[in-house]
């Protein structure tokens, strides 16, 4: 989205991943978002995530809708295809794209307006299909591009810059995803890259619908006192209940984990994610208890983060349908029509 092209100067000694690419190779155009925007930190976390995962750039598809968050796919992975679609419709475009080619890695970047208002219907149904994608919501409680209206994720009592505090119930994407059956649900904070990167990596490698809800403050319209989506408020009330460590395939687990509080889950392609529970009572494999825990902590004013739910067993969309492994888009047309002789046979039933 930028007029300014970023100089591509590679440091000769820059670290390279297994594909021989540096993290600079996974960057995009210069961001045009406001200085200090949480979204730019999320972009940086995405760059690090895909670089470390050794994803071939052309095998990554960047999907988005409309809004500040949806602009960000232009700011990372410039060698990847991007689809900046219409407002609230990224899930359907990604569903179709995935239907045509299941071998790409899909990363969708959305916002609270894009996913919880105009696009709530599509968000819900992508989860229901267990669409294999990493779905990031950059959640700031406001509409930025139209200058500061509340979004559906604004908390009760949260104060706008001008006008009266919000009185409507907030829509929480994490609770929604839990009730709808998403198979990987995480929440994080744009200001905590250490937590965010492994969560995004796990989401990218998870086979199924992976939601990462990232509190990503809007410095221009929602970072003041009284806002519950400000940097200060988030830092103060944020509790990490399940740390996640992403372990690449063939990499050894080096950390010594506490017995009873660590849980290792094998992801698609041989990677692992190790969950370290900060709160021993939390069970990230039970939807019912996660839901209760989250609601209780929410009512106590806490922002619960971490890898909150995971289910690697459920089939994703293609497997639910029983589709071939090969991308449908790569099947030669001549193999797809049954030929004239068969046509005669079909039509003999219409006499």
């Amino acid at each position, binding site marked *: 989205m930028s007029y300014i092209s970023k100089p591509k100067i590679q440091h000769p000694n820059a670290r390279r991943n297994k594909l021989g690419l540096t993290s600079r190779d996974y960057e995009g155009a210069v961001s045009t978002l406001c200085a200090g925007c949480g979204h730019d930190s999320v972009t940086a976390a995405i760059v690090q995530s895909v670089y470390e995962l050794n994803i071939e750039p052309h095998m990554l598809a960047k999907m988005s809708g409309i809004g500040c968050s949806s602009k960000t796919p232009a700011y990372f992975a410039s060698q990847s295809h991007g689809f900046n*679609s*219409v407002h609230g419709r990224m899930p*359907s*475009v990604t569903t179709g794209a*995935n239907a045509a080619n299941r071998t790409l890695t899909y990363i969708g970047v959305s916002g609270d307006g894009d996913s919880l208002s105009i696009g709530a219907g599509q968000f819900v149904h992508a989860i229901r299909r267990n669409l294999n994608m990493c779905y990031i919501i950059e959640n700031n409680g406001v509409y930025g591009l139209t200058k500061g209206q509340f979004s559906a994720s604004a908390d009760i009592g949260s104060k706008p810059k001008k006008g009266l505090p919000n009185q409507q119930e907030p829509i929480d994407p994490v609770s929604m995803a839990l009730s709808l059956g998403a198979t990987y649900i995480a929440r994080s904070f744009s200001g905590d890259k250490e937590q965010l990167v492994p969560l995004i990596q796990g989401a990218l490698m998870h086979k199924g619908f992976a939601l990462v809800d990232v509190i990503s403050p809007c410095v221009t319209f929602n970072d003041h006192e009284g806002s519950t989506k400000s940097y200060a408020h988030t830092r103060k009330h944020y509790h990490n209940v399940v740390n996640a460590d992403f372990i690449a395939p063939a990499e050894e687990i080096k950390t010594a984990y506490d017995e009873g509080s660590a849980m290792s889950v094998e992801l698609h392609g041989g990677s692992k994610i190790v969950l370290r529970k900060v709160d021993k009572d939390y069970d990230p494999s039970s939807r019912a208890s996660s839901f209760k825990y989250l609601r209780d902590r929410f009512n106590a004013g806490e922002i619960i983060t971490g890898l909150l739910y995971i289910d690697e067993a459920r089939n994703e969309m293609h497997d639910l349908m*029983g589709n071939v492994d090969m991308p449908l888009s790569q099947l030669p*047309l001549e193999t797809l029509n*049954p030929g004239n002789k068969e046509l005669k046979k079909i039509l003999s039933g219409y006499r």
Partner: protein
Amino acid sequence: MAKLNDVVIKIATVNGTGSASANGLIMKSLFRMGIPVVGKNYFPSNIQGLPTWYEIRVTGDDYQCRSDRVDVMVAMNAQTYARDLAEVIPGGWFIYDSTWPRNTQLGRDDITIIGIPLSRMCNEHFDGARARILMKNIAYVGALAAFLAIDIDTITELIEETFADKKHLIASNMEAIKLGFDYARKNFVCPLPSKVAAMDGTKGHIIIDGNTAAGLGCLYAGATVGAWYPITPSTSLMDAFRTFCAEYRVDPETGKRTYCIIQAEDELAAIGMVLGASWNGARSFTSTSGPGISLMSEFLGYAYYAEIPAVLFNVQRCGPSTGMPTRTQQSDIISCAYASHGDTKHVLLFPADPGECFTMAQTAFDLAERLQTPVMVLSDLDIGMNDWMVPEFEFDEKKIADRGKVLSAAELEQMESFHRYLDVDGDGIPYRSLPGVHPKGSYFTRGSGHTKYGAYTEESSEYQDVVDRLLLKWETARSIVPEPEIEFSKFNKAAILSFGSSHGACQEARDRLAAQNIALNYCRVKSFPFSASIKEFIQQHEVVYVVEQNRDAQFRALLMLDSDADPSKLISLLHYDGMPLNAGFVVRRVLEEIAKGQAA
């Protein structure tokens, strides 16, 4: 003396009582006797209990439209006796179920009333309420066979084929046929003067509806992704595609599917899925009707501007709003041609019958990929859901599908740099790359202002550069879309111009008018943008009667907008009551215009 093989039978029943199979049996029996037939189903937007009609036109002259008269009414629905009675032409026949005596007020002395105690006979011969209702339908088929001289052996053959897997039903169905047949023979003079006789008029033909034909066309076009939201009258299109895929798109070794049909949450999502799949290189389509197009409009503008192929079937129904969902119209012409905000326009195809639904499905994918833009096939309820007799389809195995300008990995590798929206060939069509092919092919697809290199812009000249190039592409489209069917004689000053399902009625009307020494030239438009030959055709005539099935003369407006046609030459013949067009309407309207002083 009534003409042989020229009779219209209308059957009035209650929907949900299983009369469709009985009506299909009559249609197919006639067809197998070699007699051309036209079948029209007039059904309510309801599941059970409301009036429904099926009309069979026996047309030895092989006309492809409904008639404007009813010779024989089979009145099986007491609710509609009065209107059914009124519809029969003088000298016609009214057959009803005399189990319950008819109200004496429901009489006419210019037609023959025939009472057959169908319910009583079926109640005596069959057990169970459902069987009795179903068999009553089959019994009227037997009676009609006697009255019209439909070949009983052909009926038997069809019943045996239908119940090949449920042999025990053959005997009961044949018994019901015999009940109606024998009663008619015993109590009335059979056959009636309006009777049928075997001929050789259906060889090489099939009976099929347009939605099935379009679904089959998508199978043959190599479509792999279908996304849709159920809506009458388009639902049976995706259902047909699914049925064909279940047979022909399952890997025999693994049992896995080489297709993906997604029932979307709404039409907005359906078109989003189509665009995502097309962007990724799959042949992808949706089927919908008018309200669905309204919901898809934002995305259609996106696809036009971001240049993404898409195929849509709009099986039109009566608008506005929910309108009459089970009645036909051609009233989405303007809403499809210019769907979406901003300067947006779309390629349209107008199939005239199921045969063209099959071929145009393939043409639509070729054009969509060649032009990198949405292509809408504008069918309608009449074509989509009625059974039409059409020549058997052919698939040309030698013809290579047009995938358009898509760069391969090898081509991208050799390029210094790739720019998505650059007009390299001067035809307004840029080159495309598919995700997952090569890193050099990557670009950012966006609906916001972009330069010819694909970068974001808000610069006036850079923006205008791209929208002007899209106009050049539109002119390329004009030169490659299907040409109209034209019948021209330099001696005629007037002509009829039509499209889609109006074709059959226009052809019959021209014959009827010719018999009155009014010869009219003819142009059947098959696509939009309008090719130069359409503009020329209009210029060659003093008056062109534009026949269309909507109130607002939408097609005429489109001719003026896109072909710069002289409005004073274009006289509208507008039919928009929801029923399929008939020749009588066209003849009457042309004669009215001539009486007003228009050229003939």
